[in-house]
């Protein structure tokens, strides 16, 4: 008898919980109580000032593209994207909290532009060996 798997994050500490419904999930930032800098995901110390008083907070879902490239060949290693491979955008998305997050850009590669408005999408990337849905993130045009 097979059990229905649950949803799990692609990396612990990166996404808010619960993971359903995905529209309500955001990226997690760790805000430093001393210098105010925000790092992506759960952290043990602030990589700007070294302070260990960090507060986890949900990050905004909307941002602007700061820079990008187009990945024209299948990335090396255990890539879980579409097979056969489809070229995709990869960029740094600037969020209002003052952090730029590296993420795949779900848009026609020929229409990606620096400065375009984007919105976070949390989605199931693949099923693992325990049939869990592994939830990843990307940004798409608003």
């Amino acid at each position, binding site marked *: 008898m097979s059990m229905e798997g649950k949803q799990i994050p692609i990396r612990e500490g990166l996404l808010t919980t619960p993971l359903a419904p995905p529209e309500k999930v955001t990226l997690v930032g760790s805000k430093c109580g001393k210098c105010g800098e925000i790092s992506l995901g759960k952290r043990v110390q602030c990589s700007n000032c070294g302070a260990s008083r960090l507060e986890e907070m949900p990050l905004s879902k909307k941002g602007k593209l700061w820079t990008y490239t187009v990945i024209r060949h299948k990335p090396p290693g255990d890539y*879980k994207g579409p097979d056969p491979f489809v070229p995709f955008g990869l960029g740094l998305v600037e969020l209002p909290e003052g952090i730029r997050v590296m993420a795949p850009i779900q848009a026609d*590669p020929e229409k990606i532009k620096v400065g375009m408005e984007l919105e976070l999408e949390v989605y199931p990337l693949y099923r693992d060996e325990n049939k869990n849905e592994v939830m990843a993130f990307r940004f798409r045009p608003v």
Partner: protein
Amino acid sequence: MKEVAIIGAGIHKFGRFENKSYLDLGQEAAQMAMKDANLEWKDIQMAYLSKMYLPATSGARILKPLGATGIPICDIEAACASGGIALSQAILGIQSGAFDVVMVLGVEKMPRGFMDPSMIYEKWQIQMGMDTNPSYWAMRARRHMYEYGTTDLHIAKVAYKNHKNSVHNPYSMYQKAFTIEEILKSPLVCDPIHLLEICAPNEGAAAVILCPKDKAAKYTTQPIAIAACVPTNAYYSADFRAPLDSLSAKANNPGPTEVAAKKAYEQAGIGPREINCFEVQDTDAFCEVEITEQLGLCKFGEAGRLLDEGVTEIGGKYPINMSGGLISKGEPIGASHLGQVFEVVQQLRGKAGKRQVPNAKVGLAHVLGAGNNCAVTILKR
């Protein structure tokens, strides 16, 4: 502080060598350096191996067959800047008085194709497809184009120049000139970077032998002084080499090249405009554009103009990558900085043949790579 000099330099051509092991590559470069320094393996008191992809104890495996003299042999890794940090350790060892004659050897024999991403990235970054190394360089290029108006043609001009220089370098993997059109029509790897604008991981070795400058005359009539050797890692959010997951939009720290170069200029007591030749990290052609600015050869955003004016060609005021750069030589990571140092030593000795910068007296070598590791070395004749 005690001054240190290079008394010998050796190299094994960079490229692909199916019938040679990394032991062969390393031993050939080491022997060439010892011959150049007019000394023997028994004279070496300490040896460092700079490497990233070779297995554990590679230094001992390469060097012990030259004679089991019982000296310490240490492997060092700092990604593309491995050679810089190995060199600085050797200098510190001499300055401390612990050793007089030290070998720094760089060797690499890398797998074909993309480098194994698990060496650098976390599992989730690989699964989401954020582990193509050129993508990080490409994103830097795109932002520079957006901010300063740098063009595809500027980037192609770097590749054009470096491929052109490589024709005269027998130690380069590729020794072939390409037209601007051929470069811009080569396939896009990660927009806006084309295939002919990217370096290939490969195989090779380079070595130098150091001793206190006041003892150099015992070994050579052409010692080259190490005026500075500064390894560094980037300040917070100051660089975005792989394996980045985010950057601060508020921090405004100087990049690792700026930091290392500033310290190196202070140590050497000179500025960038008093340096006659440069070998810099051109993992991709855009990388050289940015480094030209970060070394202080022009203001930010003006490297494109320098390229248009031919300033960085061998006949120009600030020749960059006379050897053909990594774009032509390939990048055997552990050997790349020592390969640059080998080239600068040839330039300062006036032995660089058709790629010679006339009357070069001071040269600079620069590396930068994964984990934001960086190093700047300045040599003087």
